[in-house]
């Protein structure tokens, strides 16, 4: 006998290509799973900030009467309490990507790998530069997850004393800001060997700025998360500076919804922690990470 599952999905609003991918994949999962399972109802809510997401959790429980929840928390620390409240009401909780500060507030955790997100590019760049050169980095928006990535990147670079990280400024995961920051990096530093743009959107801005300045010292621009545009460039080999990427696909929300829904329909639990590894994408394996229909 199958259980009736009323699944709530709380994710950030589509304010950036990556979160747009999350929204898209979540909707894809809803469409697919609701068709497959009569007893399943999926309600998706997108929030523009942590407070709003906490509100939505309340509403999902009070009004939508969910009995399972998949949440991509806006902020780990801020949502720990609200999620714990939901769990206390007997809702099965799967947390995606950004782990709560108190793991007891969740039943299952499906995580992206932010450490690898910073480590993989660091290792790739270090190797490609033969352990020597000047690099600049861009940061996203000041958040815990941005810190994790930056720390992972730095910890790898510690082992390469001849690689100099010239500066790492915030560009807010935004193409325009990245363009400006890169312009100024180019004005300031006469020799840059590689750029860790840390996000494919920011990489777009970086590339434009380099093109404009007609600089040819930059050998690598490393984005991150594997947007379809960048993966396409990689597959086509269109830009010699785009040599590799690191996977951090919004698709994991799809996996999380599917796993949770199917387990709950059967009345089962998920493993406490599932890590979706972030891996190096190169020309060779790029096809596996190319989803032309997704907005990301």
């Amino acid at each position, binding site marked *: 006998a199958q259980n009736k599952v009323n699944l709530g999905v709380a994710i950030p*609003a*589509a304010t950036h290509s990556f979160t747009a991918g999350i*929204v898209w994949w979540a909707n894809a999962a809803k469409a697919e799973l609701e068709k497959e399972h009569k007893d399943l109802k999926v*309600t*998706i*809510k*997108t929030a*523009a*900030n*942590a*407070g*709003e997401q*906490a*509100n*939505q959790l*309340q*509403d*999902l429980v*009070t*009004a*939508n*009467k969910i009995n399972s929840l998949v949440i991509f928390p*806006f*902020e*780990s*620390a*801020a*949502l*720990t*309490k*609200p999620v714990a*409240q939901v769990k206390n009401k007997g809702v099965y909780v799967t947390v995606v990507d950004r782990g709560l*500060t*108190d793991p007891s507030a969740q039943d299952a955790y499906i995580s992206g790998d932010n450490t690898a997100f910073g480590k993989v590019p660091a290792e790739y760049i270090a190797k490609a530069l033969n352990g020597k050169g000047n690099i600049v980095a861009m*940061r996203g*928006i*000041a*958040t*815990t997850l*941005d*810190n994790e990535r930056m720390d992972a990147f730095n910890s790898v670079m510690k082992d390469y004393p001849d690689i100099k990280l010239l500066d790492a400024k915030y560009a807010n995961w935004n193409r325009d800001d990245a363009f400006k920051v890169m312009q100024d990096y180019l004005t300031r530093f006469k020799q840059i060997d590689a750029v860790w743009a840390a996000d494919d959107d920011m990489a777009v801005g970086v590339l434009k700025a380099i093109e404009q300045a007609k600089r040819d010292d930059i050998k690598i621009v490393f984005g991150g998360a594997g947007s379809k545009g960048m993966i396409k460039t990689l597959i086509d080999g269109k830009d010699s500076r785009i040599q590799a990427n690191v996977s951090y696909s919004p698709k994991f929300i799809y996996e999380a919804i599917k796993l949770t829904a199917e387990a709950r329909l059967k009345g089962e639990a998920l493993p406490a922690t599932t890590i979706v590894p972030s891996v190096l994408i190169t020309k060779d394996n790029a096809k596996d990470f190319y989803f032309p229909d997704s907005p990301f």
Partner: protein
Amino acid sequence: MVEGRLERARSFGSWLHGVGPVVGLALLCVAGTLLNSDFASLDNAMNVLTRTAFIGIIAVGMCFVIISGGIDLSVGSMAALIAGLVILLMNTMAGWMDQPILVVAIGMAFSVVLGAAFGLAHGLLITRGRIEPFIVTLGTLGIFRAYLTYFSNGGAITLDDSLSDVYSPVYYTSLAGVPIPVWVFLLVAIAGGVILNRTAFGRYVQAIGSNEQVARYAAVDVDKIKVLTYALLGACVGIATLLYVPRLGSSSPTTGLLWELEAIAAVIVGGTALKGGAGSIAGTVVGAILLSVISNILNLTSIISVYLNAAVQGFVIITVAFLQRRK
């Protein structure tokens, strides 16, 4: 007789004007109930009121500032920074003494004092420094958030668990079936109404916003009153923050983003003119509730593409404003 008619017509007009947001709210509630029967449940009502409390309390303070002819863009950043500093303070104090209740109490007091102090600084820059309020608070909007980012090293500042357990009842407990934040909101709103309408201070705030020169001529200490309005708003931000901290237990550089817009919108939707001079606390409260109800209804239904939520909010805000347009 003619005069009587005229006066009645006039007061009906101003009555309609006054109830504009209420009508809007009522219509929204009807729509909400039709869309989802749970909308009208007590639980949902309490949820909405509780979450309105933060913005609502800030909006009450903002109402004074706007009536006096000023503006404060920094309230969101200010709330985030206060939350961060209060959490840091409480975490530190928890290391020294083991009376978590005392620690929390000190933290709460600190929150209000800090808010008032920030507001005071705004007021002094605006009056003594003779700088446009828009500029001063745009500047501090950046400054407050930057310092929070600095103190948190770009991440989140999180309240220690032991304290969190003591503190969270402040947000999560109910008294007589009504959550504490709603009680506080109510008290702040009543206090705001009384101060605005029943004290000389409130009268002066309105006079300054209506015509600063006239107020000056009437020997009103314009600068002092202005400074006080900003300090009052700061204190309101402090109160909102002390309710906010136990809810999410942390502060990060994204905390309180765009609260300023929400608070100002609540005031204006509530019928206060941005130019100042006149306005009402009741309207502001209704405005704040109205704004939360819109997003509550959007959460409770899925008829519209999630991408268009903001559009629905926009349409509703404009419509409500249309219902209570001037004259």
